[in-house]
């Protein structure tokens, strides 16, 4: 069957400073397509979708929608032309209601005698939510009362309310649990049956295999290939993305699970935040201690307390070496601790500063002599980290916001390695990072372990916990529910039982 072209891009180029996110991208989306867009971090997927959705404008190149020139100036404009997007990051606006979020930018539709007809707005919002199968979300509640997943669903409702011809979904499923996914797949199916199109961006290749009828592969901003349904296989997609064959397993190969007897850090009866209560643990030299659980199990709060960001309500965190109590990040860093926040762009990296400024930030004390810090010493430290971490950049003075997600994360790691951290608290260290960089990170963690450093790895990903940890502690509602030692027989099922 010959499909009708819905959207066609020709020669799209976009650069951010010296970084080229996209170069001459030609992509055709036909009616009835569920086109997967894949590529490693930094390959240009999000940039491309942002351009199609009107959030960014291309440096050069043209687009045609339904055979007519298409040049959206904003996302609202694109939406009025029936192109909608659900973004990767949180795209809802805080402190306003669900229905205001759904109709944001279009509130004028509900104007009545110069006032906002809230009742009409809420009833329309309820209708949309019902249509996409989320009638349990109340349109009049404030968005802040909803959990992460439901906020994502509100974004979906916003994207769907004026019946788009093209729906762009940018790595949304990672934020969704079963309920949200089912809902999303149903929407995709419906779009397909109505002969509309979906552009679907995901890291999850299994999911893409299941959902999409074609995938386009991007690498370093170039279109590498487009695979039709009958050509698609996970191995093929992976090798096209990376540009080389990847070995199956990138976790630790050993099942040794040993560490030294020396305790480096103790958490004693700590209560902190809304859930974490009377929690105790010991971290040993040369140990990778995995902490698992659901997002609200208290494990993220645990990481913050250990590093001294939050003060515990009761209890204490003690560095065994000199019996120092960790009171704030400064004492933690002085005692060679490092912390990688799960929210990289907001808490771990100054994205508008250079790679050099970020990498030396925790080592400034060590770099000064006679109170002065010369550019030469900073550069030397940075170059060494860029080299050993193989950070892809044009120079050590490139701005971090121009880097891809994986390379940004490498800069965060490099900051703590430059500070010679002995104890690393890693909160979701591989979140939103592609396969290639993930493999690097795991190898690095293994090296650190073997050189006698200690790691607390907080993660929501079970394969990663099982694959990397010497010991795993599972938290539920702020308390320890299970503890496992490294073993070949450990399965995700065994862990999940203790999480829920």
């Amino acid at each position, binding site marked *: 069957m010959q499909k009708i072209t819905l959207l066609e891009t020709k020669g799209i*180029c976009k650069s951010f400073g010296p970084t080229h996110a996209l170069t001459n991208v030609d992509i055709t989306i036909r009616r009835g397509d569920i086109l997967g867009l894949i590529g490693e971090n930094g390959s240009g997927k999000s940039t491309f979708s942002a351009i199609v959705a009107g959030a960014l404008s291309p440096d050069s190149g043209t687009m045609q929608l339904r055979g007519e020139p298409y040049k959206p100036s904003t*996302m609202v404009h694109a939406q009025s032309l029936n192109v909608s997007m659900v973004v990767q990051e949180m795209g809802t606006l805080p402190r306003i209601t669900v229905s205001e979020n759904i109709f944001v930018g279009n509130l004028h539709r509900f104007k009545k005698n110069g006032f906002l007809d809230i009742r009409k707005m809420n009833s329309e919002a309820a209708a949309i939510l019902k249509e996409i199968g989320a009638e349990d979300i109340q349109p009049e509640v404030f968005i802040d009362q909803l959990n992460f997943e439901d906020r994502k669903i509100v974004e979906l409702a916003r994207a769907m309310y004026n019946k788009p011809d093209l729906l762009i979904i940018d790595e949304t499923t990672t934020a969704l649990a079963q309920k949200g996914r089912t809902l999303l797949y149903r929407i995709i199916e419906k779009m397909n049956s109505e002969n509309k199109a979906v552009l679907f961006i995901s890291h999850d290749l299994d999911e893409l295999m299941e959902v999409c009828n074609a995938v386009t592969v991007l690498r370093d901003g170039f279109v590498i290939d487009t695979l039709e349904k009958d050509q698609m296989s996970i191995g093929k997609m992976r090798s096209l993305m990376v540009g080389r064959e990847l070995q199956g397993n990138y976790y630790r190969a050993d099942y040794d699970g040993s560490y030294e007897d020396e305790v480096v850090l103790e958490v004693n009866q700590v209560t902190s935040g809304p859930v974490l209560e009377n929690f105790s643990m010991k971290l040993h030299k040369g140990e990778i201690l995995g902490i698992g659980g659901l997002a609200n199990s208290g494990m993220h709060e645990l990481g913050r307390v250990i590093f001294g960001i939050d003060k515990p309500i009761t209890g204490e965190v003690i560095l065994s070496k000199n019996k120092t109590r960790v009171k704030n990040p400064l004492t933690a860093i002085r005692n060679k601790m490092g912390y990688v926040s799960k929210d990289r762009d907001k*808490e771990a990296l*100054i994205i*508008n500063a250079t790679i050099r*400024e970020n990498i030396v930030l925790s080592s400034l004390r060590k770099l000064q002599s006679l109170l002065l810090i010369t550019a030469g010493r900073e550069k030397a430290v940075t170059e060494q980290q860029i080299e050993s971490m193989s950070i892809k950049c044009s120079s050590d003075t490139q701005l971090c916001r121009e880097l891809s997600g994986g390379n940004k994360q490498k800069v965060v790691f490099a900051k703590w390695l430059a500070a010679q951290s002995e104890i690393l608290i890693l909160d979701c260290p591989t979140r939103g990072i592609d396969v290639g960089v993930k493999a690097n990170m795991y190898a690095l963690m293994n090296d650190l372990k073997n050189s006698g450093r200690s790691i607390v790895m907080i993660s929501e990903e079970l394969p990663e916990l099982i694959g990397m940890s010497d010991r795993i502690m599972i938290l539920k509602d702020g308390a320890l529910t299970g503890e496992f030692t490294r073993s070949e027989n450990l399965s995700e099922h065994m862990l999940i039982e203790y999480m829920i």
Partner: protein
Amino acid sequence: MSNIGIQQKVGVRQNLLQDASKRNKLNGILPFAGLLLVILFFTIVTGGSILDAQNLNNLLHQSFTVVIVAVGAVFVYSHGGMDMSLGALQGITQLGAAWVITSSILPPGLAIPASILIGMLVGTITGGVHVLMGVPAFVASLCVRYICSGITYTVTSKQDIYIPYTEFTQYNSGVIKALVLIVVLAAGYIIFEYTRFGKNLKAIGGNITVAKQSGIATKLNIVLAYAIIGGLVGLTGFFTLTRVGMINASSGQGLELNILTAIVLGGFPLTGGSASRLHSAIIGALTVTVLTNGLTLWGIDPYIIGGIKGLLFILIVGVTYDRSKGKLVL
């Protein structure tokens, strides 16, 4: 994909790269071009009298205050702060200096450290209120400004204060002022670009959460920044007093607007962070001085000059302010 195809694509990339670096260079040159343009413009409209020896001497005296305080402002604006108390603060540092000079017990030489200390103390209060009580810097400094100008107003309400300024003519020599300028500029440059303190401030301006998590004592650094600008305001307070010889309720007025305009005209980012450069603030300070001086020579009413600077400020901020942030949301 053929090799030729890749080569073409690499070619496209290089062109884009060149465009981007051209744009960056242009943004760096703009403030310098602005200064030259202002000088050129007033040379023409004043028939060259802006560049005669007498006026150049005036320019030195006038730029002295703005440049020195701009050095202090670098520490405040680089971490994302703001100080609206500067003019009123200069007023009370002058009061302090005058009090030492006219007292019969204290040696008049103590007037310099006294006005610097008063400035640092008030700066510490501004910074302290800001970080300890969580009041935005704009509001905290505005309150301090009214407290300061209230004090000056009360003290000078009966009559203006005069000092025997003929005894201090040595401080008004161009040579002394040039020396002080050079020392302050050099020290400011070294501290801002080559010490942990300067780097900490840029990090705080870039992202205060990251700065905290990297072990920076953010509150201490911020308070110190306000103490420094206060001290430098105090230094200029003394020199202003010895030049003018009197204090009244309006002493120092308008300094904060001059500094704000200097920051913006020099291309110094209002949000602070990594792109903060000392020379931007200095270029801006010189531009503001020449602008004020030129407009006065041209015969424009001083009140209208204030209005012109305000308009210019809005224009520059309007053209250069980075609105791209948050555009992705909707």
